């Protein structure tokens, strides 16, 4: 009798916990069903906004299935941007190592090999120091904005023209490294030998339609 009672008591413990867990599972399934599409949509939207910012003018972006051979170690995603179905440039997602961790950024490069835009997506640099890499003072300086394959960006300290943020050389160097890796990817897509070179460089060679 008392043994039976004990078993019943044990069963009650299992039953109550199981019921609570099952009920919770049901509620979470509903919540997930309601929020999942919106979360996916927001993620897609954020990516599209970043892409459009990095390669202004391009209307359509196609993600490359595989990274080009010889891409830098920090390159994680490559998108081709199209204007009227013609490839107008690439947007490369690179994640160079900064001071506090990976700096996730997107760099747009035109078919002519010019940097079209740089956006920092996320980073864990020191607030007030390395975190300033997000600011226009740094990212929008002429030495970065007007850089390209012909004149790859480099910090002043490394013999280039990019003004680093005071006390944040490592973060700034990481950003510059990211841009250079993106330029390398663009080169592999639009290099002259490839025959996919953009119109600007065609004109320079002078063997086009004139």
């Amino acid at each position, binding site marked *: 009798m008392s043994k039976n009672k004990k078993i019943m*008591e044990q069963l009650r413990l299992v039953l109550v*916990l199981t019921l*609570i867990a099952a009920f919770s599972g049901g509620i*979470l399934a509903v919540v*997930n069903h309601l*929020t999942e599409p919106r*979360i996916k949509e*927001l993620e897609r939207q954020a990516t599209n906004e970043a892409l459009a910012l990095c390669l202004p003018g391009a209307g359509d972006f196609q993600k490359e299935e595989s990274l080009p051979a010889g891409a830098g170690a920090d390159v994680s995603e490559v998108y081709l941007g199209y204007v009227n179905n013609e490839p107008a440039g690439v947007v490369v997602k690179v994640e160079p190592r900064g001071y506090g961790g990976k700096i996730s950024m997107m760099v747009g490069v035109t078919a002519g090999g010019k940097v079209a835009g740089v956006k920092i997506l996320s980073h864990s640099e020191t607030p007030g120091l390395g975190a300033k890499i997000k600011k226009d003072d740094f990212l929008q300086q002429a030495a970065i904005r007007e850089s390209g394959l012909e004149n790859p960006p480099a910090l002043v300290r490394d013999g280039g023209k990019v003004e680093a943020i005071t006390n944040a050389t490592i973060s700034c160097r990481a950003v510059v490294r990211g841009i250079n890796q993106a330029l390398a990817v663009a080169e592999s897509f639009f290099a002259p030998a490839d025959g996919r070179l953009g119109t600007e460089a065609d004109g320079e060679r002078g063997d086009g339609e004139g």
Partner: protein
Amino acid sequence: MKRWQVFANGIFRENPIFRLVLGMCPTLAVSTAVVNGLGMGLAATFVLVCSNVIISLLRNVIPKEVRIPCYIVVIATFVTIVDKVMAASAPGLHQVLGIFIPLIVVNCIILGRAEAFASKNTVGRAFMDGLGMGIGFTLGLVLLSFFREVLGEGMLLVAEDFGFTGWRIIPEDNQALMLILPPGAFITLGLLLAGINKLSAKLSAAKDLAGKGGE
């Protein structure tokens, strides 16, 4: 205790941050900006109120041998709801608070109130306790992040996610950067704790004096 006293208890006498000193991990980590502190506080308040109510409702159903797993399941459910809803409605804030949202599950305040209060009180009182404790936690976080943001960042109320650029209080490059960094969290919290202890000691001394005068 009357209901409003249960409510006020969590804000002053047993403030989770300054009196109970519970839930310090998220407190120290997210209090870098007022909006982060507010977001974290409100998320924790929601979980606290909901879990308190449900646990109070089930207090005669849940066997005491398995009460902790039951509480954790209830709390984890609400935390996941907050996590999903925040990701869908305020992705920027969600990204900033990051790992600390799922970690509300193990926030000592929530399990502590479930065990110490909700499991022994009626639904109405458990609700008031959850609300009071949650608001107390939120106020503590906002106070801490207010000092850290203003002195450390030199800005007030930066919330890019909600289109707020904030106000600059201290000219750029003159702010006490260290307060935004992890050590600054400990220093600010220590100073605030000391200040509040001093204040409450003074208040209770004054109360004693007034009490004697009245006799």
